[in-house]
C-alpha cells in the first residue's frame, strides 16, 4: 500500500508542474464551486474531454484538485449568498448565512476554510488507516442494506431540514417519484415520460439541481429586492482569524463530523449531502447550544464543512474498489477512468494504488489551496454580499443557463432548469424543504434498484429486508429518527410544565 503513496509523492515532487496543475484545478474548482448551480459535476464534465491523452496520474491530480476545491467554493456561495453551489453545502446555509447577516461573514469564511482543509486532511488520514478493512466494510452492504441506508438518509434529511417533518417527507417522496421518470435500467422500459422524447433520459441531474437550488434563489433575491446584506463590507469581511480559531475550539464537533463524513462517503450512493446533514443533525442533537442552531451557530458550520470535505476521500473508495459511484461527481470520475483506460474494481486497489493516492493527494492539496485562497480573500469575498442584487441576478442567471446548456448541449435542459427554479422557489416559499426533494431525487432510482435486486436475490421473499443485522440497525435508526421528535417534544412540554 505504501508503495503507491511513495510513487504518487515521487511523481508530485519530481514534477513541479504538477503543483501548477493542482493549483489551476483548485482555482477552477473554486470558481465552479462559488458560481451557484455549477459545481463539481459540471466542472468535471466540461473538462473531461480536455484531459484525453494526459498521463492518467496527472489527470487524476487535476480532477481530484477540482473536486477538493469545489466544496469550499460551494460553501462561499452557501455562506454569502445562501445559495449552496451543490447539495453537500446546503447545511452550511443554515448557520453560515445568518452569521453573514449579523456581520460575521469573515468569521464564517474562516471557519469554512479551516474546517474544509482540516476535514480533507482528516479524511486522508482515516482513509489510510481504513484501507485494509475497506473491502470487508463495503462488501457488507448488499442491496437490502443499501435500500435501508437510502431510506435512512432520506428520513434523516427530512428531520434535519428546516420546515416540518411531514413536509420534508412529502418533498422527499415527490423527489423519488421524479427520479423514476424515464428509461428504467431495472425493467428496460420507459415510465412517466408522457410521450416526451426528452424525458426518455429522465430528469437530468445538472439542470434539475441548477434550477432547484440556484435559479430558485435568484427568484428569491428578486422578490426580496435588496442586497443580500446591508452590513458594512468591512464588518462583513472581518474576524477571519477568529473563525480559524473557532474550529480548533470545536475539536469534538470537528473530529466527529469528519469521521461521519469519511464513513458516510464510503457508502455507495449516499454521498456528501447525507454526510453533511447527518453531521449537522448530530451536532444539533449533541450541542449544549442547540437552540442557536439555524441562527448562526459556528458549531453548525464546522460540522457541515468538515464533513463534506472528509466525505470526498471516502466517496472515492467504493468508486475505485467496486466501480460503484458514490455520487454524481463519482459517476463522472468513472467516465474519466474509462477515458484513461483504467478499470475500477477490486484489482484496482492492488495494481493502481498510486492512482488512488494521486487522487487523495489531489483532493487534499486542492482543498488546502482553495481554503488558503479563501482565507486570503475572505474580506473581499464577503463584499459580494453588499452588491446590489440587480447586478447578480442577470449574470448568475446567464451562467446558470449557459452551464446547464454546456452540460450536454441540449437547449431543453435550460427550460427544465427554469421550471425547476420556479418549482424550487414555490416549494421554499411554502416551507417544503428543497433539500429533501433533492435527496429523494438522487436516492430514488438507487433505492428502487436496490429493492428489486434484493427481491431477486431472495427469489421474491420480503424476509430479506429483515434478516441482516445491518438492515435491522438501519431500521431501528429510521424509527428512532421518526420517533425522536415526539419524545423530545414531550420532554420539552414536561420541562415547560415543570
Amino acid at each position: 500500500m505504501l508503495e503507491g503513496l511513495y510513487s504518487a509523492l515521487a511523481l508530485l515532487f519530481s514534477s513541479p508542474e504538477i503543483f501548477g496543475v493542482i493549483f489551476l484545478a483548485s482555482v477552477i474548482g473554486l470558481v465552479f464551486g462559488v458560481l451557484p448551480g455549477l459545481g463539481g459535476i459540471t466542472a468535471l464534465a466540461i473538462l473531461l474531454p480536455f484531459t484525453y491523452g494526459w498521463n492518467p496520474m496527472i489527470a487524476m491530480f487535476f480532477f481530484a484538485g477540482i473536486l477538493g476545491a469545489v466544496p469550499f467554493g460551494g460553501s462561499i456561495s452557501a455562506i454569502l449568498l445562501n445559495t449552496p453551489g451543490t447539495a453537500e453545502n446546503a447545511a452550511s446555509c443554515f448557520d453560515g448565512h445568518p452569521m453573514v447577516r449579523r456581520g460575521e461573514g469573515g468569521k464564517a469564511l474562516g471557519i469554512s476554510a479551516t474546517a474544509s482543509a482540516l476535514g480533507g486532511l482528516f479524511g486522508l488520514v482515516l482513509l489510510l488507516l481504513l484501507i485494509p478493512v475497506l473491502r470487508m466494510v463495503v462488501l457488507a452492504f448488499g442491496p437490502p442494506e443499501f435500500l435501508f441506508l437510502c431510506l435512512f438518509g432520506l428520513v434523516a434529511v427530512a428531520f434535519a431540514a428546516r420546515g416540518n417533518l411531514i413536509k420534508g417527507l412529502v418533498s422527499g417522496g415527490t423527489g423519488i417519484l421524479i427520479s423514476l421518470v424515464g428509461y428504467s435500467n431495472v425493467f428496460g422500459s420507459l415510465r412517466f415520460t408522457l410521450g416526451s422524447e426528452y424525458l426518455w433520459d429522465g430528469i437530468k441531474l445538472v439542470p434539475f439541481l441548477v434550477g432547484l437550488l440556484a435559479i430558485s434563489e435568484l427568484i428569491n433575491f428578486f422578490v426580496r429586492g435588496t442586497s443580500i446584506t446591508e452590513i458594512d463590507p468591512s464588518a462583513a469581511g472581518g474576524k477571519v482569524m477568529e473563525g480559524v480559531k473557532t474550529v480548533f475550539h470545536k475539536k469534538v464537533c470537528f473530529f466527529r463530523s469528519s469521521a461521519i463524513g469519511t464513513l458516510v462517503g464510503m457508502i455507495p450512493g449516499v454521498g456528501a449531502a447525507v454526510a453533511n446533514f447527518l453531521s449537522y443533525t448530530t451536532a444539533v442533537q449533541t450541542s449544549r447550544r442547540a437552540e442557536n442552531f439555524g441562527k448562526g451557530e459556528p458549531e453548525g458550520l464546522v460540522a457541515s464543512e468538515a464533513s463534506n470535505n472528509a466525505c470526498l476521500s471516502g466517496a472515492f473508495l467504493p468508486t475505485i474498489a467496486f466501480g460503484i459511484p458514490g455520487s454524481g461527481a463519482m459517476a463522472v470520475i468513472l467516465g474519466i477512468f474509462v477515458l484513461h483506460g483504467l478499470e475500477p474494481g477490486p484489482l484496482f486497489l492492488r495494481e493502481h494504488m498510486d492512482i488512488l493516492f494521486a487522487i487523495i493527494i489531489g483532493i487534499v492539496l486542492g482543498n488546502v489551496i482553495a481554503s488558503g485562497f479563501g482565507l486570503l480573500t475572505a474580506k473581499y469575498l464577503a463584499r459580494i454580499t453588499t452588491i446590489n442584487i440587480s447586478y447578480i441576478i442577470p449574470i448568475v442567471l446567464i451562467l446558470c443557463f449557459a452551464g446547464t446548456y454546456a452540460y450536454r448541449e441540449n437547449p431543453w435542459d435550460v427550460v427544465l432548469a427554469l421550471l425547476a427554479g420556479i418549482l424550487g422557489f414555490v416549494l421554499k416559499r411554502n416551507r417544503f424543504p428543497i433539500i429533501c426533494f433533492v435527496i429523494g431525487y438522487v436516492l430514488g432510482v438507487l433505492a428502487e434498484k436496490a429493492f428489486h435486486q434484493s427481491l431477486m436475490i431472495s427469489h421474491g421473499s420480503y424476509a430479506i429486508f429483515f434478516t441482516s443485522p445491518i438492515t435491522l440497525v438501519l431500521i431501528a435508526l429510521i424509527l428512532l429518527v421518526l420517533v425522536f421528535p415526539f419524545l423530545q417534544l414531550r420532554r420539552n412540554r414536561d420541562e415547560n410544565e415543570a
Partner: protein
Amino acid sequence: MKTKPKGSFWMTLLLTGFVLLFCALSLSYGAKERLIPLIIGFGCLVFCTLLLLGQKFPKLVRSFDVSVHDLMRDRSTKKNTASAVADPEVAKKTVVISLWALGYLILIFLVGFHIANPIFLVLFLKMSGKISWPKTIILTAITWGFIYGLFEIMLKQEIFRGILFDAYLPPL
C-alpha cells in the same frame, strides 16, 4: 384562530395532484414496475391529506409539525407559518422575474446565447435594476466576453446559436 397559510394549501394541493398523476400512470405498468411508485405515491398522498386536513383542523397535524430546528425551542414561541402566505407583492414579483427569465429563454431559443445575453443584460440592468448606462455597458461587455471566451476560445464548444440561425433543436 391563526391565519391559515393559503399558499401552503395550494402548494400541497398541487403536489397531491402531481402524486395522483404518478399513481394513475403507474397503474398502466407491470406489477414490479409500479410497485415502488405506488408505495411512495401512497405514502405521499397520506401525508398530503394530513397537511390538507391540517389547514382545517390544525390539531390533527400539530404533533407531526416538528423538525430538528423546532425541537430546541418552545413551541409557543415558534414562528407561525403566516410568512408562507403568498402576499400580492411576492406573487407579482415572482411573476415579473419568471417573465424576465422566460423572455431570456425565448431569446436564447430564437437567436442563441451570444445575441440573447447582451440583449437580456442591457434590458434587465436598465429596466429592472435602473443601473446607469456606463455600468450597464461595462457589465454587459465583461459578461459577454467571459461567456464567449469560455465557450468559443477556451472550451471550443459551440454554444447554441438559436433556431433563427439554423441551430439544431432536439425533439421534445
